């Protein structure tokens, strides 16, 4: 008899625990009753976006100019070598 009662009570407690916990977890959070001041913002909020934008555009411009300059320099070197070779050949 006692064993049966204990089994019934424990089943009830177990069932309540299983059903009530998810139900409690699904409750919406309590409404905000007051504003909480903060001195430090989370990193995503405090990042200066304009700096990132300017950095991105500056990088594109620098990359484009550096690459164009590198082609121009390599081309000049090859053409100078061609002229030197042509001069050497004509001297013979």
């Amino acid at each position: 008899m006692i064993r049966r009662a204990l089994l019934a009570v424990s089943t009830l407690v177990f069932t309540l625990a299983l059903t009530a916990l998810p139900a409690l977890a699904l409750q919406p959070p309590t409404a905000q009753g007051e504003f909480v001041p903060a001195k430090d913002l989370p990193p995503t909020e405090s990042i200066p976006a304009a700096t990132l934008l300017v950095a991105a555009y500056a990088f594109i411009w620098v990359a484009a100019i550096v690459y164009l300059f590198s082609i121009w320099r390599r081309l000049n070197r090859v053409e100078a070598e061609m002229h030197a070779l042509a001069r050497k050949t004509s001297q013979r």
Partner: protein
Amino acid sequence: MRKVFVPLLVVVGAMFAYAPVMIAHADYEVSMGIVSKILYFHAPSGMVMLLSAMVCGVASAIYLWKKSPAADRVAMASAELTALFGLIVIVTGPLWAKKAWGIWWDWEPRLTMSFVGWLISVSYLFVRKYAGPGSDKLGAALAVFGSVNVPFIYVSVNVWRTLHPKTTVVPTLPPGMRGPFWYSALTLFLFYLLLLTARIHLERQRAMLDELYLAEEDRS
């Protein structure tokens, strides 16, 4: 070369100079604000990177098949431009992501595959520079492999769940963003053509120099 290069340089220079004005007047994306303006150069750079990788792959396949030196020159020039535009994508993307996602980088499919695509183009350049005789064929095979990666980069955002926006974002841009976006895309595409023309010319001059040296050796 000069016939194409000089007018193209003038047009691209003018378009590049006007691009910041156009972008400054473009609309912001509501949730990201000012940083969303990176879109106008980040996404077109990605498009040009993929185009360049495809050009490199196709030119390499032609070189492997027909042994055409002209195709090899196009492949070489395109590989370098894939590396350049890939670098722009890889640098500007994290600058945007830091504000939009709160992190510089995430190993999600689009970012990872783009990074791998960029590494393949850099590997091609290393192979061509340091692998010695036969590096042209080895590099060409690598470029074909790299171009196979391109469709996967493109569809990755639609197939897998990623942080990166989907490909549907560009065709559905609102009018206030569409104009500046396609203007920037055209500017970068013409810039790519300009650099490709110059880079192919450089390869042609190098080939001529090699021929001159060979002729000189034969004579002496």
